[in-house]
């Protein structure tokens, strides 16, 4: 359960940005890769906890989950994995360790109310 410490980092980051933009944060937009090691549900409930008694209290965390995308050397193309524990091309079956998307844990935008 490291989602709480991650939620606290998100809140801290959003507080900094809110100060820079002189406003109150009403929503945080986050990109979350399926291979980030962070569970969405746990993060959402942790976020609520982390927001308590901060200026983000009552704000929403909007999570965009990103699927795992690998590069297939045989097809010479990027392919989306259907299962997180089967690292091979869904088209031709070639195993590939080459992850091009899925590890993201990134705050992309904030909704700020002035």
């Amino acid at each position, binding site marked *: *359960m*490291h989602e709480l*410490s*991650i939620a606290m*980092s*998100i809140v801290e*980051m959003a507080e900094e*940005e809110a100060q820079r*933009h002189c*406003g109150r944060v*009403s*929503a945080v937009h*986050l990109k979350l890769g399926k*291979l*980030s*090691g*962070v569970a969405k549900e746990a993060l959402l409930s942790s976020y609520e906890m982390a927001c308590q008694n901060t200026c983000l209290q009552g704000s929403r965390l909007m999570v965009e989950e990103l699927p795992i995308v690998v590069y297939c050397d045989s097809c010479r193309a990027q392919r989306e994995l259907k299962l*997180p*524990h*089967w*690292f*091979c091309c869904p088209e031709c079956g070639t*195993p*590939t*360790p080459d*992850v091009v998307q899925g590890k993201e*844990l*990134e*705050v*992309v*935008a*904030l*909704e*700020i*109310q*002035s």
Partner: protein
Amino acid sequence: MTQPRLVEVRRNVLKANDVLARELRERFRSSGVLVVSLVSSPGSGKTAFLEKILTQLQQQVRVAALVGDLATENDALRLARSQAPVKQIITGTLCHLEAAMVKNAISEWNLDELDMLFIENVGNLVCPSSYDLGENLRLVLMSVTEGEDKPLKYPTIFNSADIAVLTKMDLTQAVEFNEACALANIEAVRPGLEVFEVSSKSGEGIQAFVEYLCAELVSLRRNAVA
């Protein structure tokens, strides 16, 4: 009330850790230290394996170890029997190590006097996967008693590893461990991942792994010169 403005931010949530990890990696590189971290579930034999490795390596190179646990100094005491410098990191309630803890723990050590540093993470197959510690190699350990499908159940950590180590190989028969199945599962979550099979009890595979690490150290030093 006015409409909220959408402000683009694009900030990595773990940036603070990543920045520290990069800084640590640079320090390790400039001192020529090979840094190896160990992750696994609790009880898969990280400490027993590390004790063997440290004892063996001690005869050839200068080694040290950091070991993370929620509480007690038991593991540090066990590892200290190898005569290597060892420091316990007590995380309290935290389920993983972070780069800042490593930085703090090595603050009194002179890295130039080391060849290899081992970092034993808290026993946990979930959280440590997100945190870069500045290591060169991340080992994921899995004991034969845990079931062949462990890699499929915890794909993130197996995918993030550089080497897999199957431990407690002496128990293979007793638990009817299906080795081919386990290897296929590791290959499924991380194609091409190198696997070592060891038993800390019988000593099987320990020498081969020690030789592997020494070869890694040599190539690290060679690359540093080049």
